[in-house]
Each structure stands twice: as C-alpha cells, then as structure tokens.
C-alpha cells in the first residue's frame, strides 16, 4: 500500500505546499515536513546506500538517531551528511543521496555486498599489510576515494556565531516533563533557559497519542497555553531548533541552533548559533530513544522503528504504510496499533515476543475485537525483497515460519533513557533489570533527570516525580492531572537478536546500520579475543558512526553479554562522548576565523606604514613592518639590503612601539630589580640605562631589554615584543608569592608610549633638528643615558641606545603624539636620507654587530655564559632568579654550545639558518651512521656592508674553536659549505660608531 495523509496532523501546515528535489526529481511536501516525511509522503523508500556494503537503505527513524537516511543538501554549499529525518524542506531545496555511483538505484559499489565475506570484523586491521610498496600508490588512494559518505562543502564561508548565556537553570527538552518543570518555574527568582531541538514544543505529546489529556485539556491546547505562559514570564527563555550537543564540566552546556530550520539560508546572515551556556542547575528532560532488534535483513528499506512510524503519523501527518507488520518485545507499541486502527487501518500482523500472560488481557481483547492477526511468544525471523521489504517471515511456536506480505515492518526492541548528556556530564548510570536498560544513577554535577530519561516511563506519574526532584528549588505548586491512552505498566522481554533460518552470505543481521557492522562481526571479534567492550567497539567500529549507535549500542552489549555469558551490567557500557550529534566545524569556530582568527595589534604609525609600502610580519599579535618596498618590483632581499646599507651610511628609523614596557616603583624597587635581572643595579647612576637579562629559575635566558633607572625607587624596563605579558606576569607572581615583603608596584605601560629607534651616523643631526631644545652632544647625552622633557605639552623620554651598533636614540612619546612626531622626524630627516626600516633590517643590522635576539640565538636551553654574557652577571649580588642554576655542573661545563660568528671561506656562498655545523666536508648518502653534530646556525644574513654572508651559530665549545675551519650543511645536497669560526661581532668591534 502507499502512504496516506493523517488528516489530524498536529504540526504540518498542509495549506503550504513546498517543492523540492531528491536526486534531481521534483517532489512536493508541506511546510514543516522533514526530507524523510516528505519522501515517505511521496512513497520514496530508497534513500541511501550503506557505508561499507552499499546496501540499499531507507528511513529507519524519525529523528536525530537516524543511522541510514543521510543526504547531501546541494543548495546549502553542498552540505554533506544531513539527517533526512531532521532537516526540514523548503521551497527549491535540492537534495541528493550519498555514497553511490552512478545512481542510487544502480550503485556499482554494491559489489561490496557480494564481496562481503571478505570484509569481516577488523578488515582494516588485517588487510593492506603488504606488499610493502602497495600502500602509497594503491591502498591509500583507493581508501581515500571510498572513505566517507558525502562530499565536503566547497567555497563555503560560514557566518556561524557564538552566543553565551549565564542562567540559573537549564531545562533540556520541552516535552511533557520539560514543560511541566518550566511551568513550575514561571515567574520564580531563577533565570531559566528551555532548550528544544525541534521547531515546536511538546515532544512526546506531539509524537503520539500516548497522553490524551492534561488537566482535562486536549494536549495541544495545554502545550499552547504553557508556551504562552512561558513567553510572557519574565524569567524563562525558550530556544527552539536548539540541540544540546555537549554537557561539559561545571555545568557548561553547548547547544547548536539551526537559524534557518525550514527556510533557505540567507548567506548574509548567520546560519548557525552555537550557544555556550553556564548554569547552576541542569534539568535533563531529554526523553528516550527506541532501540531496534537484529534479525535477518533488518536493514531493508521498509524496516522502521515503531515509535518513529507513530511519530510520522502524529507529527507529520503521513501514514507511511496502512498495513504494516508490528514486531515488539514490549508494551510501548500499543499506541501505534491504536493509532492505525483509529485512522481506519490495521497491521497485517502484530508479532510480540512476550508471553501471552505479559501482554495483558486488555490488548488481547483489543486485537481480537479488531480482527488483527497476532502472534505472541513469536519473533521476526527476517525479511526479504528487492531494495525494499516485500515478504516478512514470522517464527511462531518456536520453529514454525509463516510468511506475510507487507512493505513495512515496525520494530520496537524497547526504549533507552537518552543518557548521553548525563554520562557526558560524568554522571554514573546503572542497569535496570526491569526496564532492561541503563538509567541515570548518581549525578556528578548539579544535574536532575526527569521523565523518561530518568527511567520513568509512566506519564501519569511524571508530575509527582518532578515535584519530588525539584522541591529543593521551591517551585510553584500547580495542579496536574495527566490522562494517558496507554498502559502505565511498562513491561518488556529481553530480545536482542532473533534466530536466522536462511544461511546466506548476503543476508545479514545488522547491529550497527550506520557502520555496516553485523551481529556476526561481534561474535567474530569476541572469538578473536576482543572481549572488552571498548576494544570490541574499535575492532568492529560498532557504534562509532555519526549516530554513535543511538538505537543499537545497548543491543550490542546484550549480544556480547550473551556470548561471554555475563550480565550486561558486568560487560559495562562504552563512553558517550560529545558531541551528542554531529555539528560542523564552522559552528565551533564561529566568527573566530579569517580576519577574526586572531586579534591584531597595530601601532599608532600603522597607516603611515601602509601608505609607505610596508610589508608586515606577525610578531605575537602585533603587525610590524617587515620591510618597506621602494617600488613594487623591489624584492625583500633588495629592500633589506638597501635599508641596511642606508642606515649605516646616513640614518634609519624603526617603529619599536611594540616593545614591552613596564614601570616599576616602590621603596624596594632596587632590590626587586636586582632579584629579577642578572645585572647589578645598585651602583647604576640615576637617569642611565642598561641592557639587562632575565633568567628562568633553571638559569636559562628568558627575556632581555633595557632598564632605565630614574632613581633607586623608580625604574622602567623594556621587554621583547612577544615577551611583555609573560615578564609582567612573572614580576607580579614573584612579588605576590616569593617576595611579598617588598613594597613594589609594577604597571604595564607598553601601550602608553609609542617608540621609535633612530640610528645611523646622521641620527644626531636629525634629532637636533626635531628636538631643538635638547643638547645631543656626546658630552651632554652620552651612550646609555636618557632624558625626560616636555614636547608639545606632553612628556617625552629619549634614551641614547642602539640595537644596530650605530649612534642611536630611542624616543618614547604618548600615542596621541606618535604619528605627528614620526612625520616630523621624516620632515627633518629627508635631507639626511633618513630611511624607514623593518624588522628584517633590524635583525640584519644587529647581527652585523653581534647582538642576540631572544628566541633566535636562544631557545630556552641557553645561559648567559653560553652567549659570553658573563659581564652582565652581577657576581657579587646575593641572589637573582637563576643564579643557583648557573653553577650547576651542566650549566658550567665548557663544552656547552656557545655563541660564535661564522663566515664562509668562499665569500660568494650563503649559509642557511637552522643548518647543522659539522666537521665533515661531505655528508654520506645515505647516512648510515650518525654524523657528529657540533651545533646549529641561529642567524644568517647577507651583509651589504661587508658584502658577504655573516652568520651566528651555537657550537659545542665554540669559544675554543675561533679560527677553525668547519662545515655547514645545506639543503641543496651532501656537499657542505666550508666556513671559518670567528667572533660574532662583525662590524665596529671597538664600538666607535656606537659611542661617536
């Protein structure tokens, strides 16, 4: 029989017809239909091909638990793996089936089903082992081609957003129990968030006619009234189309909201919202999930869970088949039976695995009265048909098989409380022998479970349960009378799999439909020794699909427990991991992508840099000019060579605003600085500055900078650009934990001063033009001193210091004056050929002078002694951070890697950074025995001022190797570059330029 409409549909808008395509063919459904309900309405049963065997598959469920009907939405950026049972249709929607070629009906991949005896449990682990050369060229390409279901989206830029919530109570699920809980919390002191995965409230109330009336009201009226009361309340917010996917520690939940459920996506708007919810209490009212039963060919299109069939009737108003067969082992299918009869139809057969006395007289009478063929103590042996159910074999009286004809088989293997979220929250579950399922036991967080998720399947008693469990919240007292249309005594017979009659390699009894795992695979895995449930899961891939085995994982435990002859509670359960259902990476990323991936920091001079053709590099979050192009065709090498040469010949200026700056003040500031840095500051004169080193407690160099001393109680220290936050945090930490007796305060002033470094032989001339009131003569402004003076109503600080080896000044000015001053310097500097330079030139110039960069010459394993910075260590100081570690045998040994300079013997050759320093001229090919490694090249540049390559290297016992010939490996071959070990100071070793 074909599908029919249920005129009493509670949800579908039958006055709004919607057209969509499936595999290119046009169909019609109604507004509110899912792809699945619309296809069922059009009598389309074949929806997909299975993952491994490419077996024909149909619609198995009516919700998020669907393992089969997974499709690709072409007009949503080719969105793959959408669940047809959840995704709503809209006008013009284009849907394709997945994992088939060339068509769904004729899929070449179905040859896998014929070859299925080869693809047994653990196939992936046993195959592809050899021959050795096959992996790269044969196995991997084939596996990559066949792996996965859908095709990934193309050229899609998501606009998903994140929304944070802080509430007192979250209610997950707006079914009967969720709505009762919400209603009791209306206008209380609590901020409440009610989350519902569907587009409407009601859950089970709209999925079936299990509940007839609430407070003498028809259920739809009660839902409407409840929703209205919640909406006008001041404290409860409802989020529909929002599926809770994760329940993390400290009552933190993640829910994904589909903003375009049932609508075409507007690409200018956010299509998904990821709600991040922090709550005090979580009420889980997320219901239950029906499970299936394994039998021969239990995957044929036409086999469907009984409650899902019922849901299609009541929620979507489509009767997928007027005369199905119902197969159950429990009492929940009665309402399906009644629904069909009420609509004037009846099942071909009602097959119940339970004993007659468990079924109950009431049902038996009903079946007889309506002339419905029924079989108790019976089971489905299997079903057969070509790409759909045609014949169903019923085993009655233990051995006798009878065959009936129907296109649909409704199966119920019992119901499981939906404990995924509860277990994600680290709540403990326990096995219930009466319900034959796991249910929540001890919560780990402030979690309350109500309704069927707690194992309470008696709707009449839901209100009592909620009263009891929420009493500590002192909610409102409300009257609640629930009239049900069903037995309130849930009973069930344990049945996981039925006995097969037909022996065939192509007839299968599936335990995991999504991953094509059969019950035979489970048995084989146990035989092969995988008798622990976590091992077995991974060996067979059971319940590892995107549905996480929602309808089948308990069944596999049941089957395995039988094989192992153990109780299910002894076998245990696998871990339910977030997310509860698949969510896209774009939703997780939200807006933190592309231009918003990482915050960007810009200096006040940034726009000037852009206008002057700066190419930027990222230094931490800062955008720093790397080099400036003189013209568009100038290469980086040309620009850096030009900037470097000009700086040494005339003058260059660098935007150093990114340098970290920390102000230190207090009566114990001197002692504090002496403890933080290796240098001694006691005898340092006021208004002078000093290059300073900071070590870790292990004695390794952590950061460097220049310390300016105003007086013994007031200092300003600079740090590296990337190291500023860490240095400040370390200072605070030491002050609060190690030296609380010191009266010192520290403030970050990085952003409060725009900083320029001007250097070169003409820098004094330029500075004198810019700051006419300052005497820059050597006598009045010697090297490593600083002055503070007024500049246009603000305070400026100028320090004579240099990171290039040239005569140089550092200028510190408030940011609102930064750009004006920068331009003023250029105004006066143009006649002196002042050139702006970037970080690459800065590195080159400092390398020529032998200055180190923290993080380039150092890597967390370098001490000041390794860099020959003994002169920076205050040996007479009682203590400083790292002092004790400098005398350890390992840090004091002479063969540690030490800083040296390197120049190639052939001056036309270039040395690459990071290359190895060795004693061998040529490396063997292939390398069979280790080649002794002496060290590595830490910095290397072509010096325009020396006209050859200069490099710095960290070499074992480097200080004793001066003048020695060594070799540097290269990336071009096995021949190494011959070099000479020299002093790392290549230019002006006498500091004449610096102090000129």
């Amino acid at each position, binding site marked *: 029989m074909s599908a029919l409409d249920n005129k009493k549909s509670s949800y579908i808008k039958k006055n709004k017809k919607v057209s969509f395509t499936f595999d290119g063919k046009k169909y019609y459904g109604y507004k509110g239909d899912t792809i699945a309900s619309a296809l069922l309405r059009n009598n389309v049963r074949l929806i997909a091909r299975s993952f491994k065997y490419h077996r024909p598959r149909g619609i198995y469920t009516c919700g998020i638990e669907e393992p089969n009907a997974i499709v690709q939405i072409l007009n949503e950026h080719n969105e793959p793996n959408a669940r047809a049972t959840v995704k709503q249709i809209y006008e013009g929607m284009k849907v394709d089936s997945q994992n088939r070629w060339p068509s769904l009906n004729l899929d070449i991949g179905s040859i896998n089903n014929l070859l299925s005896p080869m693809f047994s449990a653990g196939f992936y682990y046993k195959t592809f082992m050899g021959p050795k050369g096959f992996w790269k060229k044969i196995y991997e390409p084939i596996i990559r081609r066949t792996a996965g279901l859908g095709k990934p989206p193309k050229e899609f830029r998501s*606009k998903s*957003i*994140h*929304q*944070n*919530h*802080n509430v007192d109570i979250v209610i997950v699920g707006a079914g009967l129990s969720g709505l009762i809980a919400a209603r009791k919390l209306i206008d209380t002191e609590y*901020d409440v968030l009610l989350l519902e995965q569907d587009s409407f409230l009601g859950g089970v109330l709209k999925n079936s006619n299990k509940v007839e009336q609430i407070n003498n009201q028809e259920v739809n009226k009660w839902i409407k009234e409840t929703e209205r009361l919640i909406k006008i309340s001041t404290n409860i917010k409802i989020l529909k189309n929002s599926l809770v996917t994760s329940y993390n520690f400290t009552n933190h939940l993640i829910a994904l909201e589909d903003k375009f459920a049932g609508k075409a996506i507007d690409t200018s*708007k*956010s299509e998904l919202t990821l709600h*991040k919810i*922090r709550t005090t209490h979580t009420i889980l009212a997320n219901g239950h999930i029906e499970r299936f039963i394994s039998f021969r060919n239990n995957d044929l299109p036409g086999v469907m869970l009984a409650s899902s069939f019922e849901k299609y009737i009541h929620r979507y108003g489509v009767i997928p088949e007027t005369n199905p067969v119902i197969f159950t082992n429990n009492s929940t299918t009665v309402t399906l039976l009644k629904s069909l009869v009420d609509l004037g139809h009846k099942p071909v057969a009602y097959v119940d695995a339970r004993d007659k006395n468990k079924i109950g007289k009431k049902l038996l009478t009903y079946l007889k009265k309506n002339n419905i063929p029924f079989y108790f103590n019976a089971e489905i042996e299997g079903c057969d048909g070509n790409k759909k159910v045609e014949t169903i074999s019923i085993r009655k009286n233990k051995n006798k098989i009878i065959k009936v004809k129907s296109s649909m088989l409704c199966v119920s293997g019992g119901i499981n409380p939906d404990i995924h979220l509860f277990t994600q929250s680290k709540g403990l579950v326990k096995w219930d022998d009466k319900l034959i399922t796991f249910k929540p036991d001890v919560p780990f967080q402030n979690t309350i479970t109500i309704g069927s998720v707690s194992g309470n399947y008696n709707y009449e008693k839901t209100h009592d349960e909620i009263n009891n469990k929420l009493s500590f919240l002192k909610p409102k007292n409300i009257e609640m009378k629930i009239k049900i249309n069903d037995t309130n005594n849930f009973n069930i017979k344990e049945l996981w799999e039925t006995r097969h009659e037909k022996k065939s390699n192509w007839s299968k009894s599936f335990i995991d439909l999504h991953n094509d795992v059969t019950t035979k695979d489970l048995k084989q895995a146990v035989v092969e020794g995988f008798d622990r449930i976590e091992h077995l899961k991974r060996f067979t891939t059971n319940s590892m699909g995107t549905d996480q085995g929602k309808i089948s994982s308990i069944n596999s435990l049941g089957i395995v427990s039988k094989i192992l002859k153990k109780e299910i509670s002894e076998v245990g359960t696998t871990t339910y991991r977030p997310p509860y259902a698949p969510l896209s990476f774009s939703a997780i990323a939200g*807006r*933190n992508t592309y*231009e*918003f991936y*990482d*915050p*960007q*920091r*810009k*200096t*006040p001079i940034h726009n000037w840099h852009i206008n002057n053709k700066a190419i930027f590099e990222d230094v931490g979050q*800062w955008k720093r000019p790397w080099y400036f192009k003189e013209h568009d065709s100038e290469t980086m090498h040309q620009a850096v060579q030009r900037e470097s040469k000009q700086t040494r010949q005339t003058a260059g200026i660098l935007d150093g605003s990114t340098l970290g700056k920390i*102000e230190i*003040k*207090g*009566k114990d500031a001197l002692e504090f600085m002496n403890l933080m840095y290796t240098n001694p500051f006691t005898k340092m004169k006021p208004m002078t500055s000093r290059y300073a080193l900071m070590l870790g407690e292990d004695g390794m160099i952590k950061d460097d900078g220049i310390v300016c001393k105003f007086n013994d*109680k*007031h200092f300003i220290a600079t740090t590296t650009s990337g190291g500023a936050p860490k240095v400040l945090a370390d200072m605070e930490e030491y002050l609060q934990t190690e030296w609380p007796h010191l*009266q010192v*305060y*520290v*403030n970050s*002033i*990085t*952003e*409060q*001063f725009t900083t320029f470094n001007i250097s070169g032989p003409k820098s004094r001339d330029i500075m004198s033009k810019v700051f006419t009131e300052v005497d820059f003569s050597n006598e009045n402004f010697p090297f490593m001193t600083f002055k503070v003076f007024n500049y246009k*109503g*603000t*305070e400026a600080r100028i320090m004579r210091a240099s990171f290039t080896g040239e005569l140089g000044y550092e200028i510190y000015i*408030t*940011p*609102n004056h930064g750009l004006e001053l920068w331009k003023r310097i250029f105004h006066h500097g143009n006649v002196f050929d002042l050139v702006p330079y970037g970080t690459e030139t800065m590195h080159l110039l400092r390398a020529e002078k032998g200055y180190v960069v923290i993080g380039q010459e150092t890597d967390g394993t370098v001490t000041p002694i390794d860099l020959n910075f003994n002169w920076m260590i205050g040996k007479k100081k009682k203590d400083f951070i790292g002092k004790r570690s400098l005398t350890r045998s390992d840090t004091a040994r002479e063969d540690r890697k030490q800083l040296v300079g390197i120049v190639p013997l052939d001056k036309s050759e270039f040395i690459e950074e990071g290359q190895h320093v060795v004693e061998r001229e040529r490396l063997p090919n292939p390398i069979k025995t280790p080649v002794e490694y002496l060290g590595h090249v830490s910095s290397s540049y072509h010096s325009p001022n020396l006209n050859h390559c200069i490099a710095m290297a960290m070499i074992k016992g480097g200080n004793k190797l001066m003048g020695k010939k060594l070799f540097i490996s290269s990336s071009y071959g096995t021949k190494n570059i011959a070099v000479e070990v020299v002093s790392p100071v290549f230019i002006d070793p006498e500091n004449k330029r610096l102090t000129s």
Partner: protein
Amino acid sequence: MTKLLSSRDIDISQRNFQQIIIRGDGKDRFNQIINKEISIIPPSKNLEVTKDDRFMFAKNSFDQWSLIYLVERDYKEILKFISNINSNDEILASDYSYGQVYFEISGKNRNEFLNKLTHFDLRLKKFPVFSMAQTLIAKIDCSIYHLKDRYIVTCNRSFEDYFKERLKDTANI
C-alpha cells in the same frame, strides 16, 4: 564621542577619556593622598566603581585602581597629578590616557549583544550597577564598567581596529 553603530536596540559610541592606573595598598594614607589631589575617595570594595561628574574611579583588584576622567582635562594637569602622586614612594601612578580606547555600549539588547563576544555574566544580580570587571571580550583583555543604563568597555589602543571590526560584525550578522 564618535557614534560607531546603532542597530537592533544597540548603540555603540567611541569615547575619548583620560585614564590613570594607580597601584597602592588602599589604606588611610593612600586614600588621603588621592583625596588631597582630586577630592575623591578611592573605592574600597574590590571591583566597585564610584562616579561623579568628573571621574569614574574603580578598584580593579586588591591593590590596583583605575581613574578615568570623564571630562577632558588639560594633559599637563594630569601629568602634574601623576607626578604628585608618584612623589610618594608607596604609590605608583601610570598614565594610561592615550594608550586605551573606550566604547560606550547602551541599548536594550546590550547584554545579549556583548554575550556574543564574551562569556562574562552580565546579569544584574551578578554584575551590579557601579561595578567593574576585567574579562575577555572578542578574545581581547578588556575592562568593563557597569553604569546603570550602559557599559563602558576599554581595551588597549593597539586592538582598536580589530575590536571595532568585531563590534560591527556582531551587530551586522
């Protein structure tokens, strides 16, 4: 004041304030020194904000205060104040006047809007009027001051462009 955006019951303007960060022990002498200079007593409760027509004064942590000038002053006056304060060994005052940017966020949907960018609990019962917090907004370290019908959000000036773009993006999407 520069109006940045006004949409869906959100109004955001950029403000130009001057600011000083003050460190100290918060004891009587500290209070007297400050009061003598600007005739206002620093708030004593952690994360508390006091405000008059001239200043917004917040206690950021157990030993840190933030003094924001709501009415622009001659910069020399501010530098003078800092200099006077710093003449006392037990206090550190650092000028933050032009290194920070300030945004005034008002409108009915300001909490929902900001909660697209921060997880911070802005509910009145958790973040009362005249309190402040230091938290991440749009992945940036910010201070947020609750002034009844609006928030003042400040961050480092270097983040200004990024932060403004995030605010606009959040309002538009």
